[in-house]
């Protein structure tokens, strides 16, 4: 028997790399937002203007950005806002968001699950429940299928 029959390395060869018209990710069509402004968000949080703070981070989310640092900063700032909102107020805050905002919020909720801190996941589950009530299964599917990751 040939020596290399147990070798499976050939399965990992990317035979498509020699094609000239391979699929490439679309370049961002317009300038990608550079992420939310930390000072402004903190100021809004201090005044307990949660809806505005959340809208600010969601509207300035660096979707499709290639800079991991920018994305991580935006994530930590968004999580800060999500955790600052008290459980009883979540429903009201979510009710003030547009459907597009809900989709982005859902992306941040799932990203938040990836980096749990003390008590954060339980709180995010509450957010998830309220966001799901509005966005439905569609908003979860869009977290999975969308190439514009947060």
């Amino acid at each position, binding site marked *: 028997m040939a020596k290399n029959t147990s070798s499976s390395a050939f399965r990992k060869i990317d035979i498509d790399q020699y094609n000239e*018209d*391979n*699929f*490439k990710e*679309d370049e961002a*069509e317009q300038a990608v937002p550079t992420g939310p402004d930390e000072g402004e968000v903190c100021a809004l949080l201090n005044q307990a203007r949660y809806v505005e703070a959340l809208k600010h981070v969601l509207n300035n989310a660096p*979707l*499709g950005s290639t800079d991991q640092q920018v994305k991580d900063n935006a994530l930590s700032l968004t999580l800060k806002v999500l955790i600052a909102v008290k459980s009883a107020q979540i429903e009201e805050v979510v009710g003030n968001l547009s*459907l*597009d905002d809900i*989709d982005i919020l859902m992306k941040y909720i799932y990203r938040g699950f990836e980096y749990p801190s003390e008590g954060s996941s339980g709180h995010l589950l509450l957010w998830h429940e309220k966001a799901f009530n*509005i*966005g*439905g*299964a*569609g*908003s979860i*599917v*869009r977290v999975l*299928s*969308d*190439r*514009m990751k947060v």
Partner: protein
Amino acid sequence: MSQTLTFGDSCAPITCHAWNKERNQIAFSPNNNEVHIYQKEGSDWKQTNNLVEHDMRVMGIDWAPNTNRIVTCSVDRNAYVWTQGEDGKWSTTLVLLRINRAATCVKWSPMENKFAVGSGARLISICYFEKENNWWVSKHIKKPIRSTVTTLDWHPNNILLVAGSSDFKVRVFSAYIKDIEDQPGPNVWGSKLPLGQLLAEFRSSGSGWVHSVSFSADGNKVAWVGHDSSINIADASQGKAVIKLKTEYLPFLGCIWISNNNLIVAGHSCIPLLYCHEGDEIKFVAKLDNTQRKESGGLSAMKKFQSLDRQARIETSDTFLDSIHQNAITYINLYKGTKADAVKISTSGLDGQLVIWDIATLEKAFEDRVMI
């Protein structure tokens, strides 16, 4: 309102289905390399033929109503055109697709003189008959497709073709074959129409791969559904702008126009939905299926055990959904009427059921409700 058909004792998913012109015969693939043909006899459906020529899973079937020819395509990279002899037997004609990946979808053109095959080789084969050699030859549309072509639909003018692909884009091409047809005139999509000419490309940034596309009856509008649970419509007479509706449902796998403004979509949420295109909005109109949880009495004991076996369940607890289809709907077809005025449509899916829906009564019921 609706009529449910199952074929044989098999619970296998139905990959795709196609009707003959009189709607008394159906061809479908039970998720394998075979294509079964059933004929209606009285109120029963009896299997008359089994087309076995492919050696891997059949991905697409289309039945040309007037010339009574069936075309099938498969993961084995082949397509066959089937014609029925006087003795009722079906025989194949070879199609030279010249592709090195699976064929994924196939559609006859409206005039039935050519058909298009989409494939994983990132190209579309436009096939037409060559008498001298008694086979179907193909010409390729390659650029700028960057990924598997998942779905196709013909424009009513027999020239234009819309293709959806897993590179998230929907493209309108010219599929004009100068060897077999006259020079086409200009239309709303474009005026220069050599084969492969890209007339429109719709990208929806950050959306899912495209599952199904449909040209409207007048050919001015294209609708498509993607894996981001969205419904999209582009109107060539309105500057080709894309209208997108993100829905709260699981992704849709099929879409079809049933009038110039109404669209049926269906997919993983197991219920066909009716949407309406008005101005620059897509509006939800109605669910076709308002079934409440029903008793499982309709199923034979045999079916019940088969279903238990298939889902590897031990206990007989009820897992029925509140819908007629019990699993994702993968394919929608017209049953009665045309895209301009469909009266009945048929859907098939992973649960092995084929359901014929009466849209006329549904639309009437809806109008009555609006009146009240």
